[in-house]
């Protein structure tokens, strides 16, 4: 079995999804009308609301949704075997993933470009909006924690990527300065940035920076994030995210080529197809479905669809290629990541120290090096590739976080002065996330993040369903996935909370000592976070069901 079959299978299944199911659903349920003015036109202000071409919007949506979720999530297949993972990525996306992204986009477009908060207020209840808001805060902190620890972990594991990352940040800052301060053209300054990144990778391989302490790397990551958060957007965050998008896209293309060329290079799927329902982390259901988040379905996408793309959709008929198309493309990316994990033999996994996210880099190497050569450079590049995904998303999330703090504390001025600004908010965000990440219970943390993320997807789907019920359209195609996601994720959150409570003080890794008071306290907090997320999710779900019934019965 060659990895190319994953890709071919993906293209066939997703092609079918787009050209049969999606087209049919689109016609029967949403009936997009190219003549209906979209919010981008009715509320056009050139700032939040303005129409852009479907190509731009597709790129925007894809970049927004393609993060570490689809890339790292498939690691869970190392625990359960690749067949269940493959089935979930293919069918999850077929029946739930694209429909979620697309419907939440259309939901916002049909509701004056309103975002999730106001939509849940109007469609469900005021309490649902408050619950959603609380949910989002935890969710953002969890994302930040996960991506901080991942980035630091990659620094530790790939010493060659450290200098490469420093150069990437530098390249971003320099190209930003050339663009905005020296008023150079966008092409030239981009080129300069890319050259600096290439130099960084070469230098990184020559001068690897090693340090065994993860804590040190977390501080390193935090410093980069903090600087990015407090400096004006145009100095660091913006240009770094911008130049980073080139290696980010390049890495995907390279992986794609590696997978396509697999029959020629002779790289095969080496992992077992099925390992059993129970694994160390817990049962396959619900854990596999929450672990492989963004490749199959992800709540993050509803935020991008509603807060981002909905206000820019030119015509309603663009919604399917943008919302659905981007999601199905992301499914392909998840399949390639799955392949990259699966080409490693069980022996190789053991050599790497067991089931780890970083196995991806070695899988990518295995796929690509036979074509390109230059193993250490490919390793450094994919180390950097993972870090830049983690870092750029963390940069954006930390901004969201302090904006959210600012909004939440708006009614309490003294609190707002402390955490409702970019300094305090960023520090608090980094400290809380750092404390979470420090425990070493990363797989549990990932599952907690995945659980909340997928739950958000379920809630978005139920919002869509309520709306569809209100306008007398078929609801089953979103209601069933919503029910499935909510039940699955609530179960996963409970499972994780249970794990933290039962093994209190044990779910840690060095440098944190198991059994200590700090370890217990942190594990306890984790458990509480799980419970809180569970309750908030439940609140929204209960109110949603009431609202759905009312919508079905009334009017």
């Amino acid at each position, binding site marked *: 079995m060659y990895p190319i079959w994953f890709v071919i299978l993906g293209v066939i299944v997703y092609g079918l999804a787009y050209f049969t199911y999606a087209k049919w659903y689109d016609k029967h349920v949403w009936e997009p009308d190219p003549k209906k003015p979209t919010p981008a036109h009715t509320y056009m202000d050139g700032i939040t609301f303005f129409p852009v071409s479907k190509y731009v919007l597709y790129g925007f949506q894809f970049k927004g949704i393609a993060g570490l979720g689809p890339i790292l999530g498939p690691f869970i297949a190392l625990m359960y075997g690749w067949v269940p993972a493959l089935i979930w990525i293919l069918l999850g996306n077929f029946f739930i993933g694209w429909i979620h992204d697309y419907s939440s986009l259309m939901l916002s477009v049909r509701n004056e470009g309103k975002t999730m908060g106001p939509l849940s207020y109007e469609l469900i209840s005021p309490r649902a909006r408050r619950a959603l808001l609380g949910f989002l805060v935890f969710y953002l902190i969890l994302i930040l924690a996960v991506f901080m620890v991942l980035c630091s972990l990659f620094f530790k594991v790939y010493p060659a990527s450290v200098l490469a990352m420093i150069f990437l940040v530098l390249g971003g800052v320099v190209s930003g300065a050339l*663009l*905005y301060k020296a008023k150079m053209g*966008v*092409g030239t300054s981009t080129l300069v940035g890319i050259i600096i990144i290439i130099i960084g990778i070469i230098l990184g391989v020559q001068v690897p920076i090693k340090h065994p302490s993860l804590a040190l790397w977390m501080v390193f990551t935090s410093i980069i994030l903090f600087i990015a958060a407090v400096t004006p957007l145009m100095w660091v965050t913006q240009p770094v995210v911008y130049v980073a998008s080139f290696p980010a896209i390049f890495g995907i293309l390279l992986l794609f080529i590696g997978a396509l060329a697999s029959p020629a290079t002779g790289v095969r799927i080496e992992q077992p197809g099925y390992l059993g329902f129970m694994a160390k982390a817990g049962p396959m259901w619900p854990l596999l479905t929450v672990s492989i988040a963004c490749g199959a379905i992800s709540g993050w996408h509803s935020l991008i669809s509603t807060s981002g793309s909905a206000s820019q959709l030119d015509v309603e008929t663009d919604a399917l290629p943008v919302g659905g198309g981007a999601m199905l493309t992301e499914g392909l990316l998840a399949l390639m990541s799955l392949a990259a994990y699966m080409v490693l033999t069980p022996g190789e996994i053991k050599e790497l120290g067991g089931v780890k996210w970083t196995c991806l880099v070695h899988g990518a190497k295995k796929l690509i090096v036979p074509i390109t050569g230059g193993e250490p450079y490919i390793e450094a590049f994919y180390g950097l590739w993972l870090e830049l995904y983690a870092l750029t998303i963390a940069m954006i999330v930390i901004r969201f976080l302090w904006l959210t703090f600012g909004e939440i504390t708006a009614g309490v001025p003294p609190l707002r002065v402390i955490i409702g600004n970019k300094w305090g908010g960023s520090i608090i965000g980094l400290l809380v996330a750092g404390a979470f990440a420090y425990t070493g219970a990363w797989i549990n943390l990932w599952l907690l993040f995945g659980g909340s993320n997928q739950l958000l997807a379920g809630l978005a789907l139920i919002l869509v369903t309520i709306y569809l019920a209100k306008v007398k359209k078929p609801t089953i195609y979103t209601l069933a996935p919503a029910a499935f996601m909510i039940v699955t994720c609530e179960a996963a959150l409970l499972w994780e909370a249970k794990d933290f409570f039962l093994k209190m003080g044990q779910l840690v890794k060095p440098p944190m000592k198991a059994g200590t008071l700090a370890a217990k306290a942190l594990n306890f907090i984790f458990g509480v976070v799980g419970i809180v997320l569970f309750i908030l999710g439940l609140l929204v779900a209960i109110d949603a069901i009431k609202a759905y019934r009312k919508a079905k019965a009334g009017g």
Partner: protein
Amino acid sequence: MPKSLKEFFDASPELRIVVYAGKGGLGKTTASAATAYWFSKRGKKPLCFSTDPQASLSDIFERDIFGKGVIEVAPSLYVVEIDADKRIAEFQEEVRAKIRELYKIEKIPDEIDEYIRTAAAEPAMHESATYDAMAELLAKGEYDIYIFDMPPFGHGVRMISMAQILDAWIDKMEETRRKAAEYEEAVARLKGLSAKTEDEVLVELREIRRKLDFFRESLTNPKTCAFFMVIIPEKMAILDTERALEMFDKLGIKLSGIIVNQIYPPSLLENPNISTFLKNRIEMQQKYMKVIWEKFEEYIRALVPMFDREPKGLDMIAKVAEHMFERPWEVDVI
């Protein structure tokens, strides 16, 4: 004896602005007109400007000059009386024209037009329009000396204090505009457009600030601007003057002098047939004259008598000027 008005002017060769402050009806406009007349007779080219909404320069010069622009009422004696309402109407039209030009539209949206109309109807608009006109004339600098009257607790003085507050706001506005422009340019560059965004608002803001600063500086520089208060020997006037002095101090304005107006000649008391009414009145005035001398001696620049008729027409103005400048300490009417 304190320095007389004439001595004061002789000692201030750089003087460009003379302001007469005081309550309505005390003779500010008359004093302004007389000063302008006096300068014109000394070979200067003065401009007399009335900011009083119940404009009275037309009365004094017995000629309709209201809203007619600058008029030479006597050889090299220029006066102007602003028709604020007309200016506001013109200003509104300018704003509308600008909107039409900027957005290439024929009809101003109703909401905007309503805003323009309500803003224009506010009382503050009147004073702003007047002082804007004044600042414009000052900025042009076509005359040797500018003379105008100003109610002490009214708009003009507020304009000076406002200039200080506005400065802070305009700072803030300029900052937000600069940053906004920076972001806009960054966006354009990201899109690969070579954007040179010249923020017209910033230009406009700087223009407003320049005008306000110019106005404030012109009025607060003691070398180029003289502030006089016109008072009469009555209790209220004395209290008002003390209050005004405090306020001037706060604004950084130095009072250049006080003109005591409408003094009944005490020689009238020598007439045995004087009516009790007049007698009492003169005695009262004498009492307050004493207080004025005690309190403000260093500031007093001229004493002007009460005339037996209204100070109207060039002849009367010449007479007032004669009293103010040539016989500052005599109150017997010539």
